[in-house]
């Protein structure tokens, strides 16, 4: 429980309730997948390659990050030679874009000659623009290939494009078996791990070092309200490295790790920090930082001041802001963003974080007896059978995804009534200025003064339709009356707003789960941060209205999955 966010502590039951009871699911791994017959690709390849396995051909046994707990290293990459073209045929914008990141071009250079066809053309395009590492020209190079892949990007972009996406997406992933292991057991194998590359030969370490991206390693998710930043702090820096480390890189590391707050609005969620994580053969801590999107200009300015561009690093960014601020990054910060599909990143991030757990504890949890504040318990949940899964991401707005496998998912629907609506309405109704303040007010309010309940209309349960008297019949329904408007407090209004938005999300999620025939629903997103009221309500509402058929699940790192996914893209961890 170290490093619990102070603000979180201010709210009584929001933080973990039952850490002791957690069973780490990876200590009893599911039966290993038939790896020999159908080897998955080496996703955690520390080499900063493009996950294009043919690039690995010729490498007998690519350096592997080893699972520390009872897992063997990954097998060799699949020998399937038609795999790559298939990838390209079905490539999606997000992935393809990732492949075009300038940071990778150098690593690929030596091998490109082995590639023909489409990929060759892509690389050619890349080389045309990327003559020199980190040079401005490279950016142009990045820009031009985007047009090659624009067809994919359009659909992958945002809400509307995605509406037509699911079929294609599913079709494409169905025909791309090698993108990820199809067996879910294998999925975890590929993901990150705890221990370092103990068995990796010196030579491989050397090769790793060359091919993995340079530090610093960031993943960025620029949402409508909040920017989520994950930062990997290497703890295994050798003296030699330390010496080589340029001053600006050092100062970034020191700045980020020695503070918990940045400027007036940036906050490091210390309690979420993942310790001793091995990524791309490097061991270190993963830090979780957030700040409001409206401070993005200041962030970019800081990047300029700290001379980020000299580090020749790549910023992998997702979220709408990756598009919105791309130009600012370029013109002000002299930084090239690698834009990534937000849903791809989200799913990737969730699956990865779930697999590495939470410093020995379970990442995923649920509530037992959510309606009873005495008996309510937060308990770890072993997400050993994650699919199918309904993923409800509650940020400013809400996206609902049906996930059938790592690469097979579709966006089912979304709603504009999300965290932004809660906070926005609270600001208007109560004059509060922060999300924390809004939640704090809500925790003290009584929504039944604001809402009209079934019992207010029918005197009790509405038996004809089986509606319980306590159910809300009309959110803010009592506010139609002048007297009642005058009798409510700001706290009551904040509470009612929270209940309204939460119930609605629960209701839409429930309908989607029914329509998609999925019974586990994972709620993520920053709306749930320090928001036990909402989580318990979601848990209760889902259970009650589905008569126990649906289970609401939550995840410790709530809002950071997109950013984690972006970091994984940077490291080419599939």
């Amino acid at each position: 429980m170290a490093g619990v966010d102070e603000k979180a502590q201010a709210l009584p039951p929001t933080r973990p309730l039952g850490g002791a009871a957690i069973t780490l699911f990876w200590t009893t791994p599911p039966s290993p997948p038939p790896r020999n017959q159908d080897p998955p690709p080496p996703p955690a390849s520390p080499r900063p390659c493009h996950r294009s396995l043919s690039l690995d051909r010729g490498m007998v046994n690519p350096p592997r990050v080893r699972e520390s707990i009872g897992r063997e290293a990954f097998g060799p990459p699949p020998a399937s030679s038609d795999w790559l073209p298939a990838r390209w045929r079905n490539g999606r914008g997000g992935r393809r874009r990732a492949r075009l990141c300038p940071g990778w071009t150098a690593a690929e250079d030596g091998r490109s000659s082995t590639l023909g066809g489409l990929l060759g053309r892509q690389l050619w395009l890349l080389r045309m623009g990327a003559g020199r590492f980190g040079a401005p020209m490279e950016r142009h190079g990045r820009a031009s290939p985007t047009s090659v892949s624009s067809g994919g990007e359009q659909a992958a972009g945002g809400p509307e494009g995605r509406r037509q996406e699911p079929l294609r997406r599913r079709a494409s992933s169905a025909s791309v078996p090698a993108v990820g292991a199809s067996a879910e057991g294998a999925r975890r194998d590929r993901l990150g791990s705890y221990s370092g590359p103990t068995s990796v030969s010196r030579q491989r370490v050397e090769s790793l070092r060359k091919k993995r991206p340079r530090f610093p390693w960031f993943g960025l998710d620029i949402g409508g309200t909040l920017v989520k930043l994950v930062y990997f702090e290497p703890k295994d820096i050798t003296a030699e490295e330390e010496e080589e480390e340029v001053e600006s890189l050092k100062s970034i590391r020191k700045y980020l790790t020695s503070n918990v707050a940045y400027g007036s609005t940036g906050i490091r969620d210390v309690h979420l920090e993942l310790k001793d994580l091995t990524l791309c053969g490097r061991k270190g801590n993963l830090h979780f930082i957030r700040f409001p999107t409206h401070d993005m200009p200041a962030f970019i300015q800081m990047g300029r001041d700290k001379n980020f561009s000299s580090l020749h690093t790549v910023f992998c960014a997702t979220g709408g802001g990756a598009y919105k601020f791309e130009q600012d990054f370029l013109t002000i910060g002299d930084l090239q963003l690698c834009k990534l599909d937000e849903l791809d990143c989200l799913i990737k991030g969730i699956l990865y974080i779930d697999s590495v757990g939470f410093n020995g504890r379970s990442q995923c949890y649920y509530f037992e007896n959510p309606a009873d504040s005495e008996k309510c318990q937060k308990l770890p949940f072993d997400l050993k059978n994650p699919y199918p899964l309904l993923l409800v991401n509650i940020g400013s707005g809400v996206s609902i995804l049906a996930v059938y496998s790592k690469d097979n998912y579709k966006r089912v629907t979304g709603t504009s009534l999300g965290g932004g609506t809660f906070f926005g309405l609270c600001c208007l109704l109560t004059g509060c200025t922060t999300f924390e303040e809004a939640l704090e007010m809500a925790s003290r309010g009584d929504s039944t003064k604001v809402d009209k309940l079934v019992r207010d209309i029918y005197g009790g349960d509405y038996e004809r339709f089986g509606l319980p008297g306590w159910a809300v019949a009309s959110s803010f329904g009592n506010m139609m009356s002048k007297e009642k408007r005058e009798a409510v407090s700001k706290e009551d209004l904040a509470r009612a707003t929270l209940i309204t938005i939460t119930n609605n999300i629960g209701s839409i999620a429930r309908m989607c789960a029914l329509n998609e025939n999925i019974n586990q629903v994972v709620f993520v997103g920053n709306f749930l941060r320090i928001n036990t009221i909402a989580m318990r309500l979601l848990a209760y509402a889902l259970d009650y209205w589905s008569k126990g058929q649906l289970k609401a699940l939550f995840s410790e790192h709530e809002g950071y999955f997109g950013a984690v996914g972006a970091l994984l893209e940077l490291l080419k961890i599939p």
Partner: protein
Amino acid sequence: MAECGASGSGSSGDSLDKSITLPPDEIFRNLENAKRFAIDIGGSLTKLAYYSTVQHKVAKVRSFDHSGKDTERDHEPPYEISVQEEITARLHFIKFENTYIEACLDFIKDHLVNTETKVIQATGGGAYKFKDLIEEKLRLKVDKEDVMTCLIKGCNFVLKNIPHEAFVYQKDSDPEFRFQTNHPHIFPYLLVNIGSGVSIVKVETEDRFEWVGGSSIGGGTFWGLGALLTKTKKFDELLHLASRGQHSNVDMLVRDVYGGAHQTLGLSGNLIASSFGKSATADQEFSKEDMAKSLLHMISNDIGQLACLHARLHSLDRVYFGGFFIRGHPVTMRTITYSINFFSKGEVQALFLRHEGYLGAIGAFLKGAEQDNPNQYSWGENYAGSSGLMSTSPELGPAQRARSGTFDLLEMDRLERPLVSLPLLLDPPSYVPDTVDLTDDALARKYWLTCFEEALDGVVKRAVASQPDSVDAAERAEKFRQKYWNKLQTLRQQPFAYGTLTVRSLLDTREHCLNEFNFPDPYSKVKQRENGVALRCFPGVVRSLDTLGWEERQLALVKGLLAGNVFDWGAKAVSEPWLVDSYSEWLQRLKGPPHKCALIFADNSGIDIILGVFPFVRELLLRGTEVILACNSGPALNDVTHSESLIVAERIAGMDPVVHSALREERLLLVQTGSSSPCLDLSRLDKGLAALVRERGADLVVIEGMGRAVHTNYHAALCCESLKLAVIKNAWLAERLGGRLFSVIFKYEVPAE
């Protein structure tokens, strides 16, 4: 003629509260005979329903007793006409604001003569609140009925009985309303009732329905949250604010999140990413209008999304919306429709109801009137007594809306006989009687409205002349003129006020208005005279037809049908060549085996029925074809009524052995259509007629006259052979159809195998 107007109770309306601006005799009509009250008290509107009987005059025809006379005197009319009082049943629905409730109850108490009524069915959220008041004022016991049950009963009732009840709302199109023709199978459907909260009900049959879901974000949220945000207290004012706001100032849109990139990404930048997402700041003020608009979008989108999710789960594609949140407000219908289209990708249709506000009252009434079996009858909307939909003009402020919102009326006549669809329709669900949709066709609308305005003087004169002995005929005729003129003006402004505007609806409205002022049959004398003349000509016409060769005779018979159709407009000759001419196919068909049974829809009295239709019928009978001759149940213009046709047939039978024996052997059957319209709706026909058609295996349908074969049914597809004949007696229409005045339509159709 009795002096007291049978309809309207106006004489002592002065006692009504002065705040009621409409003349009370137009509001609580026929209250003396009222029984079976039901009341639906909502948050702001009260809907009162009662059942009453309407006494009005009808023209009856009766044969003279000819026994003992062997010759007819030339100048004697063929039958006598008498005006009689008839009592019909009518349902009255009145909608008014809750503020008037006490005044209205007082008025009802003062005027209620009928004392049989002991209970009043009550529903709606306000029923509790006003229970004591109602019991005290009316001395009636309040019987509380379940809100949703009433709503669904009412919904089923209007869907079954009111043509063009449901409509889709299309923003920015002219007209914004697109009415649905009545679907013979209304079940199953999804009803989304947006009151203070939202209830989503799946209706499977008349009595089986299920609450499948709901949402607490509804009209109460709009009102309550809107009042908090904007300090605006009234619902309508909130909507008015919303109609002027810019939600993009408050909502976080996709373009706010993605910047300019949404275009290259192929995203619609205008989609809302987060409702009220921009208001999450302390240092900005937001306008009331913008917040109201954002709230409206938020709620409408949310309801639309949930409705779509439920529709999908239950595999339904029709969703009806009702409740006070909608209440005919264009701005809410627009946002709901948008949301449904967006979330269902066009697979689900958002339908609204013209009488959505009355559903609860209708249902409560039906619950209370179960012993009268109201569901056994067919009902028809009385255009004269109903106020129709309000204007949807976006400029219309709450003040202007208030007038029509203050009192709104719906009257439904109980029809004598239940109506059903003609079994011979090829595809009943897709049958649309009317040929031209005047709501759609602005040019045609303008023409016909002017046409009906110009003809009004003539109709008024004819009405006065039809009742020479009545002292108040001129006065009543003037009232009729005012009423119909006002209706026409309303329709100019709001063509959709009574559903799809058609020539048929204009004609029917005129008939309803004439009836309203006790001009049941202005043409009765004209018809009587013409029938007399034609009957005297009948033997000569038949004789001369019989002298013709077979082929000549067939042409002469068809020309006779067409000619009779023309004479009432004084045409001397039809225009050659025929505009639509499939005569040779028809002739060829006649050379084949006879039809088993022909169903003929007759048009005019006089020459048409006697010298056109009857000789044609006689030829069919001679060929061995049975004939069902269908005439209107009630009078309309100079159309032959069923009772007139009976007398005419009887007289012809006296002259012609063929018709005589056919009548006796029931090879010629005279039936009524169930209609009193100069047009013909094949989906609403007398049940007996339909049964007979089925029983006799009718394999030929003959429809004659402009009203039945051109204004309606021109495109009607039947599953048997059909003949549609008319002479276009209107230059404008003839030109539209590509012909000249008095062009002939002879359309013989054989269904594709």
